[in-house]
């Protein structure tokens, strides 16, 4: 580009000089030939220029003047040429960048019809560019239509009505019908008045990442199976010995066997909790919301923990709001939340203490509040930040009670956040702790999964 410009410039200069000399010369000859009558001051002027030297001077003067005018024109032209070249270069750079990046990029008009698709999109889908232009992005005619109607409705509402970017994972298919998974972000591009001019969709192929996720989840599943086989053996044979099937056991024998049995149960619980953690992290668990009454779930969990409540002579106080609506939620997940919070409250409260369960609607009537309180040992100040971390157990209870996986609150927090809710607590040492969970009345969102989270065993 620079070279061409240089070439153009020198060419023009030579042409210009030649033109100026030619025009100058013609003008002089015309004046000489015409011999027209001229006003006095011009006549005297021409007297001078008709002198042999004058002709030369006039020619030169004309040339210089014409050259100056030409230079001005040339510079203006040069500037225009440079600007156009820069614009062309910018366009080319942007286009090439958009074409060559690995992300799939589509630009669509306000109706969602494709006006541009980059090379990655062509390569991954197998559709030619001219086949895509004018068709609806994400439609069945092309790579789309693999997701639920709700998914697409949600997407179009977000970008067209709310005029906000939309992000989500989805499955597409190639021209040959092969599925691929992407993370898509569609951004509406607005003009200065806030009207949508066009949409830009950028997709990243996450097929490989998803395959790794699945491999991880498969590994966890297989590992759990392998771990559970010897755990079952220990559990069942200890059970048979304890039941006296093969003869009486006496005194310390029973005590020792019970320790083996209990230790084994803890390992089983740990494997179950670890499985839940991995399901939560891989996102492979299903969420199946259905119209759910919360109070019966709370009551059945209270019944489950009754043995420990009775053993420690704890007082249970409950308060259930009368105006609680039916919540669209996965009852199993709600159960896991109640199970963990209530069994923790019972476990970490000294004998004769109080535990409370309040299920209420918040003041704005936007959330259901679950409050689980106890008069227990509390959570040490310096360890409060870590209480929701995996495998973390506070020092004070670790020294008192060796049981517990350190995974319960992590699992609860993950479930609550998955449901769009929040969880927090207040705690005072040796006075007690209150956990509060909020769940939005909008309920839980359905999630496809290959597995379910498992409840605790009692």
């Amino acid at each position, binding site marked *: 580009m620079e070279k061409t410009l240089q070439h153009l410039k020198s060419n023009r200069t030579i042409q210009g000089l030649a033109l100026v000399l030619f025009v100058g010369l013609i003008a002089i000859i015309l004046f000489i030939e015409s011999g027209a009558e001229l006003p006095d001051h011009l006549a005297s002027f021409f007297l001078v220029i008709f002198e042999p030297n004058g002709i030369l001077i006039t020619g030169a003067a004309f040339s210089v003047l014409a050259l100056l005018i030409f230079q001005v024109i040339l510079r203006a032209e040069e500037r225009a040429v440079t600007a156009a070249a820069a614009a062309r270069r910018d366009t080319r750079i942007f286009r090439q960048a958009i074409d060559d990046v690995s992300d799939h990029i589509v630009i669509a008009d306000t109706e969602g019809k494709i006006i541009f698709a980059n090379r990655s999109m062509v390569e991954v889908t197998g559709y030619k560019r001219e086949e895509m232009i004018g068709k609806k992005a994400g439609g069945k005619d092309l790579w789309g239509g693999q997701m639920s109607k709700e998914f697409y409705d949600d997407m179009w509402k977000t970008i067209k009505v709310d005029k906000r970017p939309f992000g989500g994972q989805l499955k597409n298919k190639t021209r040959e019908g092969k599925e691929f998974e992407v993370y898509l972000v569609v951004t509406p591009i607005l003009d200065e008045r806030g009207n949508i001019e066009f949409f830009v969709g950028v997709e990243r192929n996450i097929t490989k990442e998803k395959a790794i996720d699945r491999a991880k989840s498969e590994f966890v*599943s297989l590992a*759990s199976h392998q771990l*559970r086989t010897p755990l*079952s*053996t220990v559990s*069942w044979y200890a*059970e048979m010995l304890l039941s006296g*099937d093969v003869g009486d056991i006496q005194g310390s024998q029973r005590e020792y066997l019970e320790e083996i049995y209990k230790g084994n149960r803890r390992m089983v619980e740990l*494997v179950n909790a670890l499985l839940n953690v991995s399901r939560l992290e891989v996102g*492979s668990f299903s969420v199946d919301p259905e119209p759910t009454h919360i109070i019966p779930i709370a009551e059945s969990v209270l019944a489950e923990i009754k043995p420990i409540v009775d053993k420690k002579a704890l007082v249970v106080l409950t308060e259930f709001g009368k105006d609680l609506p039916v919540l669209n939620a996965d009852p199993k997940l709600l159960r896991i939340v109640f199970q963990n919070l209530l069994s923790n409250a019972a476990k970490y409260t000294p004998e004769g203490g109080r535990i409370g369960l309040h299920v209420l609607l918040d003041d704005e009537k936007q959330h259901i509040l679950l409050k689980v309180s106890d008069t227990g040992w509390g959570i040490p100040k310096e360890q409060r930040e870590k209480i929701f971390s995996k495998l973390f157990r506070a020092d004070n209870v670790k020294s008192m009670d060796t049981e517990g996986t350190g995974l319960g609150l992590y699992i609860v927090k993950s479930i609550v956040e998955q449901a769009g809710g929040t969880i927090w607590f207040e705690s005072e040492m040796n006075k007690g702790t209150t956990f509060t969970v909020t769940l939005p009345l909008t309920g839980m969102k359905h999630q496809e999964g290959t597995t379910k989270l498992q409840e605790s065993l009692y």
Partner: protein
Amino acid sequence: MDSPSKMPTILIVEDEAPLRRAIKIKLGQSNFNVLEAKNGKEGLETALAEHPDLILLDIVMPVMDGLHMLKELRRDAWGKDVEVIFLTNLGDNENLDEAVEGSATAYLIKTDWKLEDVVGKIKQHLKIEG
């Protein structure tokens, strides 16, 4: 209880010998007749030949797994109605839900169930008192 010959017959399909043995002992104590198979292929052959009243079926097994065996079993005129309880340690499996919901009576995780309760569950399904 009636004499052992009149008691229902249970087929245990389980590849782990110690577990198979434990279940067999426990079921024997309740006077059930017990048949054993080490994998799905053996299980299918035994089931079709002996027509047990109930099948306790593991899932992860060599040669032929439990899901495959169940599918084959359900194709048989007798096998399509026989009571099947999955007794497994596999908690995660794609399409497990449908496989179980469609055609097995129950799905029990071994580590979560006491032997005594497994026997109770079998009795409940065969509508035996006690």
